[in-house]
Structures are given as structure tokens and as C-alpha cells.
């Protein structure tokens, strides 16, 4: 039976974790762009009922993205 080098396995796990975090950051950014277009549409229609909810949701997304960046930096710096 072929044995996998534990260091290589760990490296693979690390790469996978980092890629997952990056994709999550991208998805969250897309959600934020969608929220921005909603706010813009409301503004163009001279309405403002969704301005604050979209702003709040966007701040939440930004906070999650900051946390993802912090986690990614931690994983990236970790010596295996």
C-alpha cells in the first residue's frame, strides 16, 4: 500500500483551506456588489427604504471578509 508523506498531506490540506477561504471572500464580495446595485436602484427611483438595510448587510459582509483575511494570513504563515 502506498504511504502518503504526512508533510505533503498537510500541505495539500493547507492549500485547500486557503483556496476555500479565497472563494468565500469572492462570493461575499459578489453579494456586496449585489447589495450595492440594490441601493443604487433605490436611489435612482428616489426611494431610500433599503439604503440602511443594505448598508448594514454590507458592513456585516465586510466584517466576515476581514475575519477571512485574518484566518487566511494565520494559515498562510503557519509552518508545517
Amino acid at each position, binding site marked *: 500500500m502506498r504511504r502518503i508523506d504526512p508533510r505533503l498531506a498537510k500541505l495539500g490540506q493547507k492549500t485547500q483551506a486557503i483556496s476555500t477561504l479565497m472563494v468565500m471572500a469572492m462570493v461575499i464580495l459578489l453579494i456586496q456588489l449585489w447589495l450595492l446595485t440594490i441601493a443604487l436602484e433605490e436611489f*435612482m427611483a428616489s426611494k431610500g427604504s433599503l439604503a440602511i438595510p443594505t*448598508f448594514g448587510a454590507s458592513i456585516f*459582509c465586510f466584517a466576515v*471578509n476581514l475575519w477571512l483575511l485574518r484566518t487566511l494570513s494565520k494559515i*498562510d504563515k503557519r509552518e508545517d
Partner: protein
Amino acid sequence: MEEKSVPKWQEDFPIEWGADNYVTRREFTRFLVLVSGATVAGNGYFVIRHATEHPEKYPSVEIAKVEDLKPGDVHLFRYPTESEPAMLIRLQSGKYVAYKQRCTHLSCPVHFAASKNRLECPCHNGAFDATTGAVLEGPPPRPLPMINLRIAEGKIFAEGIKDS
């Protein structure tokens, strides 16, 4: 073993293109987060604009006389400023309605199709309901802004824009 000869310029400037343009995962994610922050700022801008916006006060302007328009007729005027085209329509039912004439898609002037009782935009085939201003088809994202009307002493007055 044969030693690879390195040109003189490369000895003096040993940075490779690939290494110079290399973007780490962390840098890329940092860029994503930066854009994420920019979108928060964008949303914040709309909140500030909404909070600081005062309700517009529209003038009361006489635009036509009741007897000027027969059912199916259109009268063009400008409201609330001279640079904003608008149209007064007398529907087949006899009711008067007025709208801003700019399509909500890309601001092309719309025209009244009396036979279909709708307002049509020739640029991208958008259509609005002539009675309500609602979008019937095409790319316009919002209804046509309706102008409030008041009829008094045989005269028709424009008095503000209806909230959609």
C-alpha cells in the same frame, strides 16, 4: 558540470519578471477585502444621501386647458424645470394623466401609442401602461414617474411628482 553563463545585466539586476509579478494568495485576498470595504463606502454614500435629502418642493404650473385635449390626445410640456420634458395624455376613458417623458431605462423620449393605451420607448422597445405608468415590457427597471394633476376652473395644473 557545466556552469550556466549569466549575462552581465542579469548579475546587476537579478530580479525575474515572474517573481516581480507574483501575487500571493494573501495579497489577492487583501485586494478582495479592499474592494469589499469600497462597496461598504458606496452603500454608506447612499445612506448619507438619503438622510440629507430634503423633500423636493414642486411648483404648481398650468399646463393646458381641459377643452384642449380630446380622448387620445397628447400635450407636451416641461416640468418641473425647463430641461425636463413631460407629457399630458387624455386617455380614451377621458381621464387625464401626465408622466415625465424620459424612459427610465436610458432616458430616451417615450411616445403615446393610443391604440394600445401604452407609452412606448423606440430605443429598446420598452413599454409602459398609460394608465399607471407601470412597466409592461422591455428593459426599463422602474415605472414612469407620474405627475400629479389638479383640474380647476377648466385648467389643468401640474403639482409635483407622485412617489412611485
